[in-house]
């Protein structure tokens, strides 16, 4: 089964859960005075879940006639040959982004951003360590100055043990 159909299947499951929540759990919390309204908080979600399941089924069973297979261009990505691409680099960068999200508060903006930019280029194969460190450091400083001083948004610059 092709990937787009798997996604349709997941989408239908999602719609079922969403619809279950809308049809069977939401109305219990409704205060009595609102029950006389023609429209409830759950009305719109109920409509959506039904329509969503219909559309999902159309995609799942391929009811819509498809145009001929397109020629894959050199710049497009064919997911069936995902291993031919730089999958490792992509996953490592994603991991790096998660790490950045978790470290931003405790480690402070300056340290975590410099490390992120440095490690990002390292993952992508750059090996000129001094240049990488300089680029990352200067860019971090500039962005911090712009955001903190010019835009006036607070970003904690230093790690948590060095005060605010």
């Amino acid at each position, binding site marked *: 089964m092709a990937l787009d159909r798997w996604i349709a299947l997941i989408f239908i499951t999602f719609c079922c859960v969403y619809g279950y929540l809308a049809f069977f759990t939401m109305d219990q919390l409704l205060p009595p005075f609102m029950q006389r309204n023609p429209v409830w908080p759950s009305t719109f979600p109920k409509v959506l879940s039904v329509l969503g399941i219909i559309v999902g089924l159309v995609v799942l069973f391929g009811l819509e006639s498809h145009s001929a297979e397109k020629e894959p261009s050199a710049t497009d990505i064919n997911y069936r040959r995902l291993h031919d691409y730089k999958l490792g*680099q992509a996953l490592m960068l994603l991991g790096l982004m998660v790490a950045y999200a978790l470290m931003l508060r405790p480690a402070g903006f300056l340290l975590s951003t410099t490390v992120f930019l440095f490690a990002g280029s390292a993952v992508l194969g750059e090996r000129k360590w001094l240049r990488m460190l300089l680029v990352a450091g200067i860019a971090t400083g500039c962005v911090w100055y712009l955001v903190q001083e010019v835009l006036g948004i607070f970003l904690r610059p230093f790690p948590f043990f060095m005060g605010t």
Partner: protein
Amino acid sequence: MLEGIMIGLTAAFSLQNLLMVVAGCLIGTFIGMLPGLGPMSIIAIMIPVAITLGDPAAALILLAGVYYGAIFGGSTSSILLNAPGVAGTVATSFDGYPMAQKGQAGKALTIAAVASFAGGTIGAILLMVFAPALSTVALLFHSAEYFALMVVGLSAIAAFAGTGQVAKALMMTMLGLMLATVGEGALFSMPRFTLGLMDLQSGISFITLAMAMFALPEAMFLVLNPARGTNGEGGSNKITGLRFSRAEGRAMMPVIGRQSVQGFFIGVLPGAGATIASFLGYAVERNLASPEEQKEFGKGSVKGLAAPETANNAACTGSFVPLLTLGIPGSGTTAILLGALIALNVTPGPRLMTDTPEIFWAVIISMFIGNLVLLILNLPLIPYIAKILTIPREYLIPFILFFTLMGAYIGQNNATELLILVGLGVVATILRFADYPLAPLLIGFILGTMLEDNFSRSMQLYQGVGFVLERPMTLALLVMALLLVLLPSYRARRARKRAEGVADGD
């Protein structure tokens, strides 16, 4: 209208707003030139900056400048490298790149700039005429009509997604609408679908969603496939001789005239927009050209370059019409602009012109200024700006990712938002693998709240779904929406049957 123009002139010519136009155009050109970053990602990244400005007029002017700049920058990279940064400039590379290969890169850039300028300016004049007229009509609209109109908009966007794609686009729209119901709605003040999580109480932030849908997958694609972006075979980076001859100018004139009008009206249609306008403009001009000129197309024809450039800029301007008059975005980019406006406490719609004329007219006037800035400021700078194309990807990609993260973080000041961003970004990347269009999702998400509000309001006014039958306009619009969705698939089916030799009916 004259009064309005005066208000707009005073607002747009304030020092701050002039700076905003110039800054927006420059930033847009810079980033738009980078392969793989489209106007949607750029505007999404710029939104936190725009919001902190606090002044809605300045913010919208900045974002509109970025939008124009991005389209202009996109055509630069398609001409120089044959690597369009934006889908709307793919048609530009058909004739722009061959011209650059012939050593006429400078001339190609000038033609593109002049064509963009003319398209944008004529588009803005048309906008000045049509937007007030349309918003007078729109004032007669009831919430029932608004509801129907949004349904039409959403279906049109899905219908334009292409054959075999309508159901997928609809599925994405549905997903967007469902995501919009998460959190506490204004109408019921009751948390929905929060799963008991505090972080979902205020719903999903639209900036996070926009970043996750566009900027992140684009960056991931750049990482996965290094061939993407550096598509060109070296391309000539020497830019000399910015002038074009008088004869070429004369050949361009009718093309520019036709394409700016055609492009504008295509841009007004929901779901169409710059990409369709540029391809259609190219095709139309090719058919209109004389047989000798037709042979030139694809080998560096002046007309073939001017047509898509004029059309895509006119269409960008045209797409502001539904946004400013109805408050309904017709494309992903204007949807992001709408989100920014709502965040700034401005509700675009027919009342925008009467309530806050300074915003409305300042934006239109700044479109003229923006086009002028692109022509006289950016064009001479292009040889220097083009240097950005030589930044190695080892440095470029971490920065794109960092700006994506920062955009989501500054808006919310919440590190959990970053985790949501990465999660949604992975989902969006997988959806793109499977060829699902992502713009409908975002438009559905942004329109979702308004759609439900108008739906609920008409339900309450008419005590049920009776409003569909009692207001003929609503019914007509809803029928139109249904036709829009069903027609492409019906026609495809008939075409296939005919190919099999069992055509029915005619």
